[in-house]
């Protein structure tokens, strides 16, 4: 029997500048996530509030959903093809808008190789002129306004999320790693 199939496009693939890494899914598991709800206050950056509130709870790695709120200032950038060809896609120049309504987003908290907290965040927002846009949110350049932003957090305690240099893409990327021994 011949089945008639809806024609789906074969997805386009890309060639990164570095060597193919055979591991395609880096994964780690925790027996139980710890959950938190945060209310991120006005006048402070998303980065500062998230990092500090979670550090106070002993959380260094987490995955979260950001819900609503008002942004007095919003910093974001878009992913674009790299004109130099050094990497495949890169972030364009930072954009700043004043006064935006945050719709929702997702963020990951991890740390750099030296242990500095890193927040990777994508989100959707509505600007003052009513345009709805989205992209890579620069959390250290985004200041919460009069209405707080809510974060629903799943903390990952038994392993760490760390930004490491990825040879294949030539970019620093978040990966799960075994916990470092502290102290």
């Amino acid at each position, binding site marked *: 029997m011949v089945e008639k199939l809806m024609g789906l496009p074969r997805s386009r693939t890309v060639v990164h500048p570095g060597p193919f890494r055979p591991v*395609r899914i880096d*994964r780690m*598991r925790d027996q139980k996530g710890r959950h938190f709800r945060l209310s991120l206050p006005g006048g402070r950056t998303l980065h500062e509030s998230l990092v500090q509130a979670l550090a106070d709870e002993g959380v260094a790695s987490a995955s979260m959903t950001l819900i609503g709120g008002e942004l007095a200032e919003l910093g974001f950038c878009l992913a674009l093809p790299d004109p130099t060809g050094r990497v495949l896609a890169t972030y364009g120049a930072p954009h700043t808008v004043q006064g935006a309504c945050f719709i929702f987003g997702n963020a990951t908290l991890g740390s750099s190789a030296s242990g500095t907290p890193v927040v990777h965040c*994508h989100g959707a927002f509505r600007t003052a002129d009513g345009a709805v*846009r989205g992209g890579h949110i620069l959390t250290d350049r985004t200041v919460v306004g009069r209405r707080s932003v809510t974060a629903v957090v799943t903390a990952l305690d038994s392993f760490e999320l760390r930004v490491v240099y990825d040879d*294949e893409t030539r970019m620093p990327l978040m990966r799960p790693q075994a916990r470092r021994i502290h102290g």
Partner: protein
Amino acid sequence: MAEMRMIESGRMGRVAYARIAPNEDLVSSVEKLCLAEGFGHAFVRGALGSLVDACLERADGSCQVIRGPAAEIVSLAGEVRSQPDGSLRAALTGVVADTHGHLYGGPFVAGANAVCVTFEVTLEEWLPSPGNN
């Protein structure tokens, strides 16, 4: 037609985080992550990353292609369900931004959404109560 069960009780179990590499398919990678971790059912708790091009299903079954690279996944919700034959099916739906920041939304078509640079996903295992069946 089988009677549809409105409610399923249960609890959340383990949590898994993964980084999916370039050119891997979004939907099948989430299924593979569950297979690798032994999760029968799971909910997506957080996800962000980029696609070469995004492919979303329209109401008539055709595809809406949002050209990248890279199309950014701005937000994603979804679940993985174990099927009667033991296979796993991920149903993922979300919002993507094109290279101008314009937004599009809908269900991600399985097999048609290749990761561009990276995709980060956190899954929570869903453990239905035995009394459901």
